C-alpha cells in the first residue's frame, strides 16, 4: 500500500535512470543551451520543490493549508533585505529557512488543535494577514512598490538553475525518506484517523508540527532562490494568495502522498503556465480550475492514480490475453 511494510524500494534500473537524468540536467547549462530552457528549468525545479513541500503535511498527513505563501515571502524577504545589506545571497538562505520554520511552529501550535476545514480556514487568515502586514511595513519591505536587489552579480541564469536543481534533489530525497520511514506511517495514520493514531501512541501534534516545519524550511529556501533569481520582490507577489493556491494545486493534480505525484503536478503546472500565459493571460487559471474539478470528481488520487489505473487495466488485458491463448489452442 505505502511501500513500508513490503519494503518495496525503487528498483535498481529506475535509480540508474534517475542518476542519468540528474547528470543530464546538471550538464545542461554547460553545453550552451538556450537561456530560455534554463529559465523553464529553474521554474520547474522551484515548483517541484514547493509542490513536494506542500505534500509532506497536506498529502501525507492530510492537513490542507492555504498559508504556505507566508513561508515563501519570509524566505524571499530575508534574502532581499540581507542581500541589500551586503550579506552573501547564499548565506541568506538559511536565515530565511529558519524564519519560515519559526513561523510555522508559531502558527502550527495553536492551529493544529483545530481539525478539518477549521484548520484550512485559519491558514487562509494567517496567509492573508502576513501579506497585509508586509504591505504596510514599507520601511522594511518597500511596501507595495517592492524591493529591488543588487544586480552586480550579472544576469547569468546558471547559478540559480543549479541551486534550484540541488534544492529539488534534496527535497525528493527527503520525501523518499519520509515515505519509507515511521514518520511517513505516522503522517498517513494521522490523515486516516487522528484519534486512532493518537490512541496508538503517535504524538499527533508533534508530527504535524514536524511536517509543517519541514515544508516551511523548503518553501523558505525556495523563496530566497526566487528573490535571487528575480532581483525584485513585492508582498502581493511573494505573500500572495495565488501562490498558496498554486502550491496546493500542483500536488493535488499530480497525486497526494506519493513521491512522483507532486513532481508531475508541478511539470503540468509550468507547462500550462508557459504555453498559455503569454497568449491568453487568464486562461491558465481557468485551466487549473477545470483540472481541479475533473480530478476531484473522477480521480482523487491525481495523475498518479490515473496512471496506476491505466497500468492495472493494461496488465489485466495482458493477463486476459495470456489466459485466452492456451484455451484457444485447445479448441483448435
Amino acid at each position: 500500500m505505502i511501500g513500508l511494510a513490503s519494503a518495496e524500494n525503487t528498483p535498481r534500473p529506475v535509480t540508474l535512470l534517475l542518476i542519468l537524468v540528474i547528470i543530464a540536467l546538471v550538464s545542461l547549462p554547460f553545453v550552451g543551451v538556450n537561456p530560455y530552457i534554463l529559465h523553464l528549468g529553474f521554474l520547474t525545479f522551484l515548483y517541484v520543490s514547493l509542490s513536494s513541500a506542500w505534500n509532506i503535511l497536506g498529502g501525507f498527513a492530510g492537513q490542507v493549508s492555504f498559508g504556505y505563501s507566508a513561508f515563501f515571502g519570509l524566505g524571499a524577504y530575508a534574502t532581499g533585505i540581507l542581500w541589500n545589506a551586503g550579506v552573501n545571497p547564499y548565506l541568506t538562505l538559511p536565515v530565511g529557512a529558519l524564519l519560515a520554520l519559526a513561523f510555522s511552529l508559531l502558527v502550527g501550535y495553536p492551529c493544529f488543535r483545530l481539525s478539518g476545514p477549521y484548520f484550512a480556514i485559519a491558514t487562509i487568515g494567517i496567509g492573508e494577514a502576513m501579506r497585509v502586514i508586509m504591505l504596510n511595513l514599507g520601511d522594511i519591505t518597500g511596501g507595495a512598490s517592492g524591493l529591488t536587489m543588487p544586480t552586480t552579480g550579472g544576469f547569468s541564469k546558471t547559478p540559480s538553475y543549479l541551486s534550484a536543481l540541488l534544492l529539488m534533489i534534496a527535497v525528493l530525497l527527503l520525501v523518499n525518506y519520509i515515505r519509507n520511514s515511521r514518520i511517513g506511517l505516522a503522517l498517513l495514520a494521522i490523515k486516516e484517523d487522528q484519534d486512532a493514531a493518537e490512541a496508538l501512541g503517535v504524538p499527533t501534534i508533534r508530527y504535524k508540527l514536524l511536517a509543517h516545519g519541514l515544508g516551511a524550511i523548503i518553501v523558505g529556501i525556495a523563496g530566497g532562490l526566487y528573490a535571487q533569481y528575480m532581483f525584485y520582490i513585492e508582498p502581493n507577489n511573494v505573500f500572495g494568495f495565488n501562490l498558496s493556491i498554486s502550491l496546493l494545486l500542483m500536488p493535488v493534480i499530480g497525486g497526494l502522498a506519493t513521491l512522483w505525484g507532486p513532481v508531475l503536478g508541478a511539470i503540468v503546472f509550468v507547462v500550462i503556465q508557459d504555453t498559455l500565459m503569454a497568449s491568453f493571460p487568464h486562461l491558465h487559471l481557468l485551466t487549473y480550475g477545470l483540472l481541479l474539478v475533473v480530478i476531484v470528481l473522477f480521480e482523487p488520487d491525481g495523475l498518479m492514480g490515473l496512471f496506476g489505473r491505466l497500468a492495472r487495466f493494461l496488465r489485466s488485458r495482458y493477463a486476459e490475453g495470456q489466459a485466452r491463448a492456451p484455451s484457444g489452442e485447445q479448441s483448435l
Partner: protein
Amino acid sequence: MAVLEARKLTKYFGGLAAVKDVDFQVHENEIFGIIGPNGAGKTTLFNLITGALTPSSGEVLYRGRRISGLRPSRTVKMGVCRTHQVVKPFHKMTVLENVLVGVYFGLSGLRSPARARARAMEILEFVGLGERADAPASSLTIGNQKLLEIARAWATQPELLLLDEVCGGLTPTETARTLELMRKIRDRGVTILYIEHNMRAVMGVCDRIMVLNYGQKIAEGTAEEVSTDPAVIEAYLGKTFSA
C-alpha cells in the same frame, strides 16, 4: 497497589450525572469487567479513564499516577492503551501497516524497520490474522476488524489494556475467539479492563465485574455474585423478577 483506581469519579452533562461517585480498583493481571444496561454510563466512564473526557470531579490513577486529562499518546508511553467501540482501522493501509503503527509508537517504540515488521507479523499470528497481513484493512470483516483493533493496541505493549465492547455485534464463534484472545493476552501478564454490553461474554471471561446503573455502581464481585445480586437483576429485568 491497584493498577488502576478511580476515586469518586463524576461526570455531569448539563444537569445530568452520566457517572456519579464511582469508585473501583483494578488489580494486577486480572480481567475486570464493567457492565450495565443501555445508558448506564459505561462509555462515559471509559472515556473518563482514557482521557477523552475530563471528569467533573474525582480522579483516575494508574499505578498511583494521575492519568485523567493526559493526551492518549502520553498514556500509551506509560503502558495504557485502549481500543475503540466503533473500530477505527486505517482503511488505506494494509493490516500489517496498521499494526506497525502500534509497534513503532508504543511503549518501547521499535525503530528498526526489519525488526518492527517481524514484531508486527508475530502479533498478527498471535491474534490469528497472519494470513491477512497484506490485505487492505478495509477488506476485513467486522469481526476481523475488531481483532485488528485489539492487535494494534496489543502492539503498543501495554501493561493495562482497556477494551471497549470488543464483542459487540460479533457472532458466537467470533465472540469465543475474541474471549480466547483476551485470556491469552492476560496470560502474558497484562491487566485488562473490559467494558461490554454482551453479558455472556463478560460473565465468561472476567475475574471481577462491576455493574453500573444510571451512572452509579450498584454491584461488584465475581460473575456469580453479580448475577445473583437482586439489585442487578432488577436493573436488567425489572422489579418483577428481582424477588
